[in-house]
Structure formats: C-alpha cells, structure tokens
C-alpha cells in the first residue's frame, strides 16, 4: 500500500502519524535526527531545572509506536527527489514514499552578530541545545540573554534555577510589547526583575566579544556598554527549517509554501507545523505559525486530507498560553499590542500587580474580540463561544464567572473587574449574574 513518510518527529509529525494510523493500515515511517522518540519540546526547560527527566517529557511510552505499527527511524534526510518519489538519508539509504509530509520544525534565528558562533553562545531549540547548554553553563558567573520572546524568558528561568546571574537584553521598550499591550508587558517586566534578573529594555546586542580561549568574554550593547559574561543565549525568535527541501522542486519562501490544505506545489508532498508558510493572506493570522498548538491542529487537518477527506485548515478562534516565571498567561481571540482605532478595552489589574484581565471589544457594536489573562485562568471553550457568538462586553461581564477556571477556593476577581467597568461606563452598569462558587460548573 501507499506508504506515508514523515520527516520530523515533533508534535506535527507524530500527530499526523497517529491520526492517519487511526484511519488506515498503510505503512507509516517517521524519520528524525534529534531523538529516538517523540518528546515535548516546550518541556525542555523543566529537564534543565530538574523538575523532570527526559523520559517524563515523552507523551507516549516507547512501546506505543511499535504497537501502532508506526515505524521510527533515526536519521537525517538529506534530499528529496520528487520525480522518483524518494528521499535520501545520511546513512546512504534511499527511501521511496507514496505521500511525503515535511514537518521539520524551526531553528534558532541568528542575525549575523559578530561573535555569534563563539563557544558559550547558543540558542535553545532542541535536545542538542539542551546538552550544549549543560556544558556551556558550568562555571559561569554571568549569562546574557538576547531577545525578549518566550524562549528568552524560559532561558532566564532556567539559568536562575542554577543560580546564574542573568542580564536580559530586550530590544522593545517593554518585555514582549510587540505582542503584549503596555500594561501587561510592564507587569511581566516587574516580575522578571522581582527574580533578580537584570532586565535591560530598549537594548540591543551589537557584538559578542571573544576571550583568549575562543570563548565568549563579554557582549557589547548598542548603548556602548560592555557586559562581561561567559554564556550568551540567543533567543530572538526562530525561523522555519527548510534545508531538506532546498535542492528540490518544492517551493520555498521563508518556510515551505503550502495552500490551505497544507499541500506544497508538488502533488503528494505536504508540509505542516513550524516549517510551513501559508500562501494565502489571512487577516490577523501570521503566515508562519510557530506554536505547539498550531502544529497539532495543522496535523489534525492534514491527517484528514491524507486519508482522503481533503480538508482546509481552520485555525478557529485564536488562543495561546505561556508562563512567565510564576505568572500564567492565557489569551483568547485578538488582543493587539497597540490600541486599534475601532476597539476599546477594559483593563483591570490587581493592586499586587500579579493578576490582570483585559477584555477587548468593538467600539460601535460592543462585541467582544479578545481576552488577555495574567495570573488568572479562564475557560477556553467559554471565551471562544463568546467571541464566535459575537457577545457584547456587557453580556460577557455579566456572565464572567462562567469563564473562571481557577482552582476551588481561589480568590475571585469578577466583581472587581465589573466594578471597574461600571465606574468608567456609568450609563451601562452591569451586574454579575452569579459567583462561581464551589459547586458550579459551566
């Protein structure tokens, strides 16, 4: 039968394999050069911090794959021959395929900084980086992290857990404020500093300076300051890993180009996850989706297509989540970092500065567009439903307790959010319909 070959054993590759297996008996081979078994990439930090061992980050026990007749191969795919419908491996083997899925993920961005390849300078993307980081961080008296995204702050937390002083260079005026509105960005910034991280806002890396031993000795910032350090973490984003398709007939831009069915220009060849780039324009959605969730959802769509039900990818209502040291973050729908002309937002922050809620809504018809939550958990299903059903901000506030997903006995803040709204909208006062209480569920 038509064999399915998948390059990459990340969330995208493995979800595709699993779901195709549920619907068909065809041979499935997954090839990866990173690890023998699928593990959770977002959990890398916890291995370094001693919260878990590598084995705990594997979502399935090792026997699972064989039992489901999903063949795993540890090798690097060096090239794809779309005419012969085969791929070449670094061990000299060639492997024919019926259908091919490219799910090769990303790699760390390096922007050509002088000194970026010195010993002690690295990114964090995979298992190899983690091992390298283990080596690079022994006997380090200061580390510098460059780039204020999600991986940067994780790296800061990792180093902090080993008691290594960290200087965190962030280009933006507030942490991650190319995504977060100012208030939220400041909230996170305060928390980063609470941990003793030396957060340098509005500061860029200019050069990484070598010592006599070929190791990093210091970094030079655009402000002309030299910061002595023995470790530099490069965390200014990731870029699609398209190497494998480069010398083939498969079209590439920044990522491997696909249509809404995740089909490349070559019939029978698909790409999904971090490495794929959509051809079509989708308002407010990025063309390259570099998330665990999107990898999984793209794979869920792709599996249907591979099993004969050609299905377009639908991201649904946007959501994402992360954790900044101790502060959890969830977002539903669209919350843009800069105020949009036709939108208004209600922003409530707890006096302690570790919890906040932002609800963005349309100025004219008052329908809710997005939520930002810090230090508070909301139900995804409820928020999605409100956004999809175009509920007004007044309706949402009245029913806010329904969305609360914090554990039992936690402080409930709905009243305070509503009180704030009422004080600024005296003409439209709302009343909380009910408290969440201990025995209520949505």
């Amino acid at each position, binding site marked *: 039968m038509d064999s399915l070959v998948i390059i990459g054993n990340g969330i995208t590759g493995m979800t595709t394999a699993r779901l195709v297996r549920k619907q068909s008996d065809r041979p499935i081979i997954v090839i990866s050069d990173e690890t023998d078994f699928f593990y959770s990439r977002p959990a890398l930090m916890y291995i370094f911090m001693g*919260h*878990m061992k590598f084995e705990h*980050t594997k979502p399935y026990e090792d026997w699972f794959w064989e039992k489901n007749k999903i063949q795993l191969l540890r090798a690097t795919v060096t090239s794809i021959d779309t005419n012969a419908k085969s791929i070449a491996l670094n061990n000299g083997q060639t492997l024919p395929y019926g259908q091919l899925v490219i799910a090769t993920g990303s790699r760390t961005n390096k922007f050509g900084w002088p000194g970026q390849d010195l010993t002690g300078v690295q990114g964090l993307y995979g298992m190899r980086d983690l091992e390298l980081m283990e080596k690079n961080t022994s006997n380090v008296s200061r580390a510098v992290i460059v780039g204020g995204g999600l991986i940067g702050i994780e790296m800061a937390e990792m180093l902090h857990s080993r008691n290594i002083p960290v200087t965190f260079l962030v280009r933006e005026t507030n942490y991650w404020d190319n995504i977060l509105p100012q208030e939220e960005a400041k909230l996170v910034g305060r928390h980063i500093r609470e941990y003793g991280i030396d957060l340098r806002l509005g500061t860029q890396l200019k050069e990484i300076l070598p010592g006599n031993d070929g190791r990093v000795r210091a970094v030079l910032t655009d402000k002309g300051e030299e910061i002595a350090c023995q470790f530099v973490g490069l965390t200014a984003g990731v870029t699609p890993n398209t190497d494998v398709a480069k010398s083939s007939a498969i079209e590439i831009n920044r990522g491997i180009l696909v249509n809404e069915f995740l089909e490349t220009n070559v019939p029978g060849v698909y790409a999904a996850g971090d490495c794929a780039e959509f051809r079509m324009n989708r308002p407010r959605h990025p063309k390259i989706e570099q998330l665990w969730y999107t990898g999984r959802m793209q794979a869920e769509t792709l599996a249907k297509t591979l099993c004969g039900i050609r299905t377009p990818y639908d991201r649904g209502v946007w*959501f994402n989540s992360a954790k900044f040291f101790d502060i959890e973050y*969830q977002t539903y729908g669209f919350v843009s970092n800069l105020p949009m002309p036709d939108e208004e937002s209600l922003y409530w922050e707890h006096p302690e500065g570790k919890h906040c809620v932002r609800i963005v809504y349309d100025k004219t018809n008052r329908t809710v567009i997005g939520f930002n939550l810090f230090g508070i958990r909301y139900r995804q299903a409820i928020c999605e439903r409100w956004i999809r059903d175009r509920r007004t901000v007044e309706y949402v506030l009245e029913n806010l307790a329904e969305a609360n997903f914090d554990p039992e006995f*936690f402080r409930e803040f709905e009243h305070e959010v509503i009180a704030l709204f009422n004080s600024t909208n005296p003409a439209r006062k709302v009343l909380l319909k009910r408290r969440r209480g201990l025995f209520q569920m949505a």
Partner: protein
Amino acid sequence: MQPISIELPHRDFSAIKKAGLALCAVGFLFMIMALMEVSRSNPVLFFMLSAGSMVTGALVFILPQLKESPAGIKHNRLFFLSATSRGFWGWAAAVFFTGFYVILYWFPQYLENLIRTTDWLSWIMRGKPADQWFLYGFYYTLAVVVMGIRMIVKNRHNRYQIIRTCSVMFFQLGFAFLIPGLLQLFNQPEFYFTYFWPLKYSYLFPNDIQWLMSQPGGLGVFMIYWGAMMSFVATPALTYFFGKRWYCSWVCGCGGLAETLGDPYRHLSDKSLWSWKIERYLIYSVLVFVVMTTLLLWINSATQGAMFGTWSQNFSSVYGFYIGALFSGVIGVGFYPLMGSRVWCRFGCPMAAILGLLQKYWSRFRITTNGGQCISCGNCSTYCEMGIDVRAYAMKGQNIIRASCVGCGICSAVCPRGVLNLENGPMEGRYNLGR
C-alpha cells in the same frame, strides 16, 4: 536511552538551610542515643534534644523559603538531589523508614528507652505511661504537622493546597492523636473517629464491636454507630458530592502523612500502563480479602465458632500481618523515597478501593481540561502521586475520572498552562470523549 548527561548543578543550599539540616542531623543522633541506656537518667532532656532539635532544624530549613523567592511552583533540582531522586540519601531514608516499621511492629522491645522519652506527654494526655503506639502516634503527628508547614510554605500561592493541608493537619492532630488520648484519660475506649472499616478493618470485626458494647456509658455504642454510619452512609454520600478526595487527601491520616512527609517524593510514583495494571489487581484483591475476613468472622461469631473454628481468626491474623502491618506500614511508608508517597493508598488500601469505585461510577467529581491548551509537558503526570498519566487525558481534552485519583490538586497546581481543574458538577456528560 537519551545520551544526555546532566551533571550535578553547582547550586547548593543556603547557609541557613544547611544549618537547619545540621540541626536535624544532631536531633537524629540524639534520637539514636535515646534508644540506649543513657537516656534513662533524664528522658525529658533527651526528648528535648532529639525531637526538639529535629523540629527546630526542620523549621529553620523550611521557613527561609518564604523569603528565598516569590511564591510559585518550585521543583528546581528535585531530580538532581540524591534524597529526592532515589540516590544515596533516598535509599538511606527508605532503609530507615522500613527499619523503623519492622522494629515498631515486631521488635518493640528495642524501642523501650525511646518510648520512655515520651512518657511525660503520655501521662499528661492519657494519664498512663507511653507504649510503642503512643511513640508512633506522636512522631507520626509531628511529621504531619512539621511537613504540613513545609507544604503550606511551598504552596502559599495556592489556596486549595493551603486549606487542604490545614485539614489533614487538623484531623491528624485532633482526631488521630489528641482525642484518642483524651478518651483514655477519661477512661473511655481509645477510638479514632476518622478511621473506619475497611481501612480500620477491626472496627467492624465482632471482637471490637463486643469490646465497644461492653464499655460502660453510651459512648461505646455511639462509636459503633458512628463507624457504621461513616462506612455505609457518609462514605458514599460525600464521595458522590466531592469525589474520594474528601477522605483521601483531606481527612485520612495515611493520606495526611503522604501529603506532608511524602510530598518530596510524590514524583517517584510509576506512571506506566503496566503499573496501573498491577495496581488494579492488587487493590481489588485486598478489598476482597478484607470483605471475606469480615464475613468469615461474623459467620463464625454468629455460629459460635461452629462453622470455621479458629480458622477465621487465623484468616484475620494473616490479614493483620500482611496487609495491616507489612503492606500499609513497612512498604506503604518505608518505600516513600523509592516509589512515591502513595504506595499503600494506590496498591493496597481497601478503603481507597471502595472510594475509587464510587468515584468512578457514582460521583460528581472530575478533573476538567481546558480546551486545547496542553503542551504535553508532563508536569501533571510526573507530580501525580497516584501514578496517573494525567497528560494522556489532557492532550486529548478528556476529563480525568480515575478510581485512584485522590484529588490532591497537584496536577492542576503544577500545570504551566492552566489546563487542569478539579470540579464537582452534574454526572451526565462527565465522561467526555475529548478531541
């Protein structure tokens, strides 16, 4: 399999924490000394030197955490430290706990001098000298209280954990230590209101019932009534509304010890499918065993021994030895540092078996998952003391309804994406299929 070699990180305990550990060690040495003849001359002094130093040392170790870093989940280095990752100190602790139980159950004569150091307290509380069980009860309660403080400090950002920990400390201190002691002071039968059949199996055995019936005053009869009500009415009712957690992680003394003294070891429970299988065979076998023992004893008692003679009594002794002592004590607590904090609760406890069946088929309790937010990181499964592979459900967006879940809430607390929540709700639709 992964060629990753994580060396021991260079970060160490702070000086004050080291001092706390040292004080604990000193107290421990005095405790060993108290086992010997020397302590006879001044048992109270030895009590102060051993228990006093250990408690002070533990608090000196625990309390600085309040200032060390902001509140939040701090499992840093757990898998690097030898005490919490089955290294040398982990094994040493296991040998110590196991040895303690063996001596306690079968060679209490060696504890004689140590028991005498608690006489003074026993006199105050019970109006009589201490015995091995008083000693045991005292140190057990002390462990729950001191390590409960640790649990609260560690989870000070989480109200569910704070309240729950206060609850187990309260029930252990009040109902499993003070009240049974005071009852004796007032010449009443020693009785534990928070333990009932089948965990405290003998409370429904004919012998205990006859003994309680024969007590002067109405209290004995009330105790029989109380025990039966708790076993047959309160257990199903409370489990229906709250799940098995109302008992296992809020009231029970075994659970109380697991949630406090056992907390540093919770991640060592086995999560494999294989161990889940073993768990089901073992726990339901024990349940059948205890039900049979109870039935045999009653049939025998009703027929005045005509039916089984001494045979049913032997059956009950076998249960007492293998399950009551060896399993629940020696293995149950002794293996904390090797197999996690809930070995007994997971593999052996017949009470947990019944509560579990109720929880699975007749309860409003479930752990809900928040849409598609799971990143499969594995924190929930790793820190589930019952060895439940929580992630397997969370990834699919399925509710978690497992007989063994004690509702400790730690999976929900450690999840970095806020995916899990313990909830009580209508039974219909409780089992969802997820994605």
